[in-house]
């Protein structure tokens, strides 16, 4: 970093003189010269080779082992009968990939999906609102963190990821659409999203009082909000990159959420996973971009693509500068503290590895397997070849892939999870098919598409639950009571233009910051 400043200082001086000789001194942000190297790395595309097929089968083995036939759920961690909606979405990702890659046949796929949707349509929700944060995978009961019957709130981000995968499945396999819509129609969104499109989670205070708190930071928040958008919600506040700030890391200005983790209870971690998932599943496109959603390619000009490129480049540059292979994400560890945020940046420091409580635990820094495979799929480069070599062999036959490989040379993290193995399968499917969410344009109905049960319900003006449960406001195409743009799903979504939010504009321009001040 230090080697970069002299030139910019000289330039700064001259710019200051030229622009502003008589005014106060001020800083001048220099325009970036050119793009990051990673801008020229294309995604990987093509059939799987023998080794990649083997990887897919190994990762799928996790889901065979941890499948609970009574509920259709899968354990989030090997052998421990508990799961979350995030991990359930990762399972759905793994299942769809296994189907598309020919590991699971149609009958096996339908049986698994149907059993799971039956459970989702009958399990209890948190306070009758949204899915609880955790469920017992054997009994489908709401549980607390100790997997004892109880309830602990709901997570906006877990729900957001689940919404993305339910949409992917509904578009790819419309035969399961009804059951999916029935599940969502059970939900009450009134505490989960507000008029400005901010996402909220629920937590239980010490006195068992429910608190609804804004949830999500840059990266995960925008990814989770995409799930809501796909079902017609306006998520203006959650989908904007602001508030963000930049930190220079190995000559890349890396964006992070500037809400202060010292004052607020959430860390502002920057990790690969949120950007990798957004790339694999949504191609870094805006969720409402229906044209992008019909093509297999990834977007390059959205802010999400731009930020993802920076997060990738900072990690490659760290390897070039230090020799440490880097693919950072949150991950499990073997034993206490069980879970760490292993980051590119968080809470003030680059390459910070912290526990949920914020303790610094650098000994758990690792090459995260899911991050490495995701980066391998999205950026075809010599660096990701090297990353892949580091993790191809990190599995146990018949069990699945390890969570990661410790940076300190002390070997693999011998933990197997649904999230890790599910994302590995997603990445392999991405190599074959490109962007995972593909809007179904096949049905020759109105607007090229048959409206779903969800959309029919939302546009039914006599359904009192639409308002009571804070479902997206939609009207049938052609009605004129609301100045709506063309909706994405064959109906007009008017939640944007009719929203009561004065403080956020979905289409306000966002000026991309320079990649770095040191070239």
């Amino acid at each position: 970093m230090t080697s970069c400043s002299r030139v910019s200082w000289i330039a700064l001086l001259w710019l200051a003189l030229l622009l502003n000789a008589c005014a106060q001194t001020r800083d001048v942000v220099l325009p970036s010269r050119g793009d990051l190297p990673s801008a020229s790395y294309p995604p990987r595309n093509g059939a799987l080779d023998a080794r990649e097929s083997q990887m897919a089968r190994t990762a799928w083995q996790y889901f065979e082992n941890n499948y609970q036939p009574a509920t259709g759920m899968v354990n989030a961690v090997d052998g421990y009968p508990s799961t979350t909606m995030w991990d359930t979405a990762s399972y759905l990702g793994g299942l769809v990939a296994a189907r598309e890659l020919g590991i699971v046949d149609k009958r096996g796929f339908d049986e698994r999906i149907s059993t799971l949707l039956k459970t989702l349509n009958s399990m209890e929700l948190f306070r009758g609102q949204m899915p609880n944060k955790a469920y017992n995978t054997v009994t489908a009961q709401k549980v607390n963190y100790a997997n004892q019957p109880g309830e602990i709130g709901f997570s906006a981000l877990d729900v957001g990821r689940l919404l993305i995968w339910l949409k992917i499945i509904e578009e790819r396999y419309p035969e399961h659409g009804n059951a999916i819509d029935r599940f969502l129609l059970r939900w009450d969104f009134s505490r989960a999203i507000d008029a400005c499109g901010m996402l909220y989670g629920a937590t239980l205070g010490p006195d068992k009082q429910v608190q609804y708190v804004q949830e999500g930071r840059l990266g995960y928040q925008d990814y989770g909000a995409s799930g809501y958008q796909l079902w017609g919600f306006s998520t203006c506040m959650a989908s904007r990159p602001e508030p963000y700030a930049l930190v220079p890391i190995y000559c890349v200005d890396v964006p992070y959420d500037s809400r202060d983790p010292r004052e607020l209870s959430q860390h502002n971690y920057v990790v690969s996973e949120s950007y990798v998932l957004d790339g694999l599943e949504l191609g870094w496109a805006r969720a409402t971009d229906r044209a992008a959603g019909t093509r297999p390619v990834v977007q390059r000009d959205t802010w999400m693509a731009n930020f993802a490129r920076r997060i990738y480049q900072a990690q490659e540059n760290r390897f070039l500068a230090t020799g440490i292979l880097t693919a950072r994400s949150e991950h499990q560890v073997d034993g206490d503290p069980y879970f760490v945020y292993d980051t590119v940046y968080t809470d003030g420091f680059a390459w910070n590895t912290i526990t949920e409580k914020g303790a610094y635990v650098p000994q758990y820094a690792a090459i995260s397997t899911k991050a490495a495979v995701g980066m391998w799929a999205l950026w075809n480069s010599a660096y990701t070849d090297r990353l892949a070599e580091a993790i191809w062999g990190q599995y146990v036959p018949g069990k699945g892939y390890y969570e990661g490989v410790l940076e300190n040379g002390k070997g693999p993290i011998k933990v197997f999870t649904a999230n890790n193995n599910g994302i590995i399968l997603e990445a392999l499917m991405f190599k074959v098919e490109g962007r995972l969410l593909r809007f179904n344009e096949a049905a020759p109905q109105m607007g090229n598409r048959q409206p779903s049960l969800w959309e029919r319900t939302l546009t039914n003006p006599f359904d009192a639950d639409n308002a009571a449960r804070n479902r997206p406001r939609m009207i049938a195409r052609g009605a004129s009571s609301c100045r709506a743009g063309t909706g994405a799903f064959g109906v007009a979504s008017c939640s944007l233009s009719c929203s009561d939010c004065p403080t956020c504009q979905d289409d306000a321009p966002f000026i991309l910051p320079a990649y770095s001040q040191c070239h």
Partner: protein
Amino acid sequence: MPRRRPLYLAGLLAVSLSVLLSSGCGVIARAVVNGYESVSAGALTNPGRIGPLTDTEQIWAKAAWRYVVNNTQPATGLVNSVDRYPATTLWQIGDYLGALVAARELGLIDRIEFDHRLAKLLGFVSRMPLLDGDVPNKVYNTQSGVMVNYSNQPGAVGASAIDVGRLLVWLKITGQRYPEYAEYLDKVVLRLNVCGLVGVDGMLYGSRADGGHFAHYREGRLGNEQYASAGFNMWGVPVAGAAASPVQTVYVDGVSVYVDARDPRTSGAPNPVLSEPYLLLGMEFGWHDRALGNPPQPAGVPGVREQAQAVYLAQAARWRNEKVITARTDHQLGQPPYFLYDSIFANGYAWNTLGEDGKSYPALALVSTRAAFGMWVLWHTTYTSDLMRAIEALYDPERGWYEGRYEASGAYEETATLSTNAMVLESLLYKTHGRLAASEQRAGYFDARLSDRFAPAGRCLPANGAPSSESPQ
């Protein structure tokens, strides 16, 4: 008695560029109006507000000196570090020397009082008890002169190379400006065994009492480390110091600011970016790497001038962007936790107000009087004019200048300290005389003593009195 430096064309160009950059055209216009007086005070070669004191500024100087008068202890000749609190550190003895020189040159005291005070202080420093290895303790009681701990109870807590560095700077500057005392000032340095504070690696080491012995540790972070290193370098003790410190860049309000890259999570030592060391480096050394004894910077490493400029620009940018009047440095306060690193950036966060316990105290951030004075005199801009208007009333003519004004409320922090009042005097001295340290050195007792090969003065001191040269044997 300021010395004129020859004006080299390149130097003139660089300086006037920096004047233009840091001050805008306003200073040029004013310099023309003030004409001869400013030029004679060094306006061509020194950035900032250069010129004779106005009547108001004379009152400011008197108030600051009043602190010193109130807090001088007749028994030792020392000055309390905090109003009516009888303890001091070596850093603050350096502050006092600076205040004393300023008071003399600003006409607040006559030659007789200057001599009385300096003689008293020299007498103390030549007698004061030292730790093993003849290095000074961090804290002394100003009434009894004994070594004390942080509670001002008799005891030894260890040595601080950073504090001694500030004293070394002012021992040298005082000798340069008043050669008649140079011999006695030199003897202080020979007595203190400054070598005990420099490791074999040429870095500054402090020590702390740890059971029955003293544990040594690398002391100082970017800023203070450079400042203290300059003090050692002035006496020919080659300290790599900040030149060897790893630097990283962070953005603070859109300005690239340079931070010590040593990790506070693993070292336990915070890495705050504070105004004070950069202001002292500016007023005393003009941010000249050569005057600081720094080796040439490797390409791409920001020099001290660049770092100081960033510290100023970031604070001005906060005023511009967030409309918060900002002048940050470490400060005292009259309530727990009593001392804060009120920083531009520290431990991962911009505008972190960091306690020694590592916690943030954002409600206790101050507009620091001494940071404001230093910025006001070194950068002649509308921002520093606004800044001065915010703090120009923060004194009691009977007590001296207060520590600052709370960002949160505008209320005063009425604690008065030696460091703040000395900085007020030093700033006003800079205004009238420009850069305080001379770049040429005149050989004196110190050099004569060092050239005596049969009575070696100390392993780290230069062998032939040639600053920074390698010993041939």
